[in-house]
């Protein structure tokens, strides 16, 4: 298969992830969208690795997966903590960034 | 997953694979009825009573063997009820999710080395996977979704609690399970189950002797992964009715049944393959067996029989334990998994790797 196909697929996944982050109001969805984006990147890595016959790309995937696991664990823990504290996980509710 | 391109012609490969899939599927489908019977007769034996022995044709009752058929018929033809509040989609999807990983696991199990049909060597594994038991671990992990989704979709406290318990338990025990397998991979220097069995051709090279601790951890995790006694908290009747599948009846219930018994069978097979030499007879090497029987196919058939016998023993063990050991408390379960088996598994890996590194 031409590598462009894989990259296009990754692009579509990434776009979905971006849209999820931008437009979903529920933090859970935002987190899932982030997973989607990370996986799009993984796909690029694996495809590149296969294409270039260089296994370093696969190694990067391990690291990305690990970081994704950490991100999910901490993110979900925060979701639980937020829900417990404020009773909601709608992102527009949280405006502490405003300072 | 990484279908190794065999040297067979495409059409032969296709036919062989298809027929292997059908055979594996049939084997899987036949496990629950037999086990139904075993689950009734064995406790009866233990409790010194008769057990079901009425169903039969004319005078042939065959120790109640037909009871299984009757049960199956009942399950299939029962009326189906879907709770009004249930999330329909996932309610229907749940049983699927619980059956399909079990069969996927079974599909990667090797039943023997190969048979020769019309001059073609056909390996006795439905789907040849390079990273054999990682695949099995992965598929075993998928089983959680069946439990979790069906429990959640039923919209009932019992099912939700049962689902949470079950999936937490399965996640917890998946880790020691995986850890217990790593020493085996180290010892036999392969992730491919067929290779591992080939490495056990000699009696003293069986996994149970080379990595006894792994076997113990694996055995415990085996029970926990399938939610069987003494780890059947997810379906503790006295607390949660029957846990995540409380709301299911009829065919869907049968599907859960199927999934549970197929994954039990798959794990039993895996245990025999990893620790008890797979299709090897204890003191008779494969070459001798081929010489003795005079044909590769016959030897392979004997091997399959041996493997099934070993697996059958573990199936029996499931039942045996169910009627002898009481249920754990939830905190004990978690403590056992995380504070005992996990460190033990890690230590086991370290020790095994150390011994191997010292070229012992």
């Amino acid at each position, binding site marked *: 298969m031409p590598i462009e196909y894989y990259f296009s697929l990754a692009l579509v996944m990434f776009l979905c992830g971006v849209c999820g982050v931008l437009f979903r109001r529920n933090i859970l969805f935002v987190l899932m969208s982030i997973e989607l984006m990370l996986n799009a990147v993984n796909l690029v890595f694996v495809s590149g690795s296969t294409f270039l016959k260089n296994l370093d790309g696969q190694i990067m995937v391990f690291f990305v997966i690990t970081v994704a696991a950490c991100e999910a664990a901490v993110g979900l823990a925060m979701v639980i903590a937020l829900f417990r504290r404020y009773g909601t996980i709608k992102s527009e509710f949280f405006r502490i960034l405003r300072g | 997953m990484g279908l190794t391109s065999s040297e067979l012609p495409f059409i032969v490969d296709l036919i062989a694979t298809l027929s292997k899939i059908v055979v594996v599927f049939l084997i899987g489908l036949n496990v629950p009825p037999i086990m139904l019977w075993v689950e009734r007769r064995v406790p009866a034996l233990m409790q010194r009573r008769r057990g079901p022995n009425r169903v039969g044709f004319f005078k042939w009752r065959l120790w109640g063997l037909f009871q299984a058929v009757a049960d199956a018929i009942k399950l299939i033809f029962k009326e189906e009820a879907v709770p009004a509040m249930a999330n329909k989609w996932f309610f229907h999807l749940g049983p699927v999710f619980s059956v399909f990983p079990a069969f996927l696991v079974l599909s990667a199990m090797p039943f023997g080395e190969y048979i020769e049909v019309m001059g073609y060597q056909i390996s006795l594994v439905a789907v040849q996977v390079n990273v054999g038991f990682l695949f099995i671990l992965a598929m075993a*992990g998928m089983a959680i*979704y069946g439990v979790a989704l069906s429990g959640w979709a039923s919209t009932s406290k019992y099912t939700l609690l049962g689902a949470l318990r079950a999936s937490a338990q399965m996640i917890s025990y998946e880790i020691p399970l995986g850890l217990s397998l790593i020493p085996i991979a180290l010892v036999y220097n392969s992730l491919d189950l067929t290779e591992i069995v080939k490495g056990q051709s000699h009696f003293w090279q069986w996994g149970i002797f080379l990595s006894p601790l792994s076997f113990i951890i694996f055995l415990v995790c085996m029970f926990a992964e399938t939610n069987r006694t003494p780890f059947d908290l997810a379906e503790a009747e006295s607390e949660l009715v029957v846990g995540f599948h409380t709301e299911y009846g009829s065919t869907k219930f049968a599907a859960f049944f199927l999934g549970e018994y197929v994954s039990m069978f798959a794990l039993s097979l895996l245990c025999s393959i990893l620790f008890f030499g797979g299709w090897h007879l204890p003191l008779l090497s494969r070459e001798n067996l081929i010489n003795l029987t005079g044909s590769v196919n016959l030897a392979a058939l004997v091997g399959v029989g041996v493997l099934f016998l070993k697996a059958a023993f573990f199936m029996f063990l499931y039942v045996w334990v169910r009627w002898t050991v009481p249920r754990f408390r939830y905190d004990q379960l978690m403590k056992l998994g995380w504070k005992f088996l996990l460190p033990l598994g890690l230590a086991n890996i370290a020790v095994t790797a150390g011994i191997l590194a010292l070229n012992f």
Partner: protein
Amino acid sequence: MSDQLVFWGLAGFITLSSVAVVTVRNPVTAAVALVINLFLLAGVYAFQGADFVAAIQIIVYTGAIVVLFLFVIMILNLDPEHLRSPRPRIWEHLVLGVVIAGFAYIGYRFLDSLDVGKVASNRLPDNTYDVAMILFSNYLWPFEIVSILILLAIVGSVAIAKKPK
């Protein structure tokens, strides 16, 4: 031919499930879509010969991460009010259009600029052993550091999610 079939099948379902993840209303549906998506992605990896990565992908993502999502969703047990999205505003439509157009343009330019030509990418041979060798030699330090990161994440998430006394 069969390659084409496999790829397009996988790609189609991956695209569908990706869209589903971000558009459906029910978080459980989204999580299941995500599982399917990641599972199929593992299929793509295996299809490219990255068996080990594929196995890890299934074990870690579907076996652990998404289960975590499901757990949280079930524990929170959000009421329907929570799941309703507000009607999208005009500027959101606008931004969506711009983002899609931008991505399309960037993607087009990028793929266009690839001078690899339409070379068919072969499947890699069995490479679990080589991956392990690289991981535990060249990438040993990153590996160790990432393991510390994981430890920190475990401790952190326990500390964050613990019930305040």
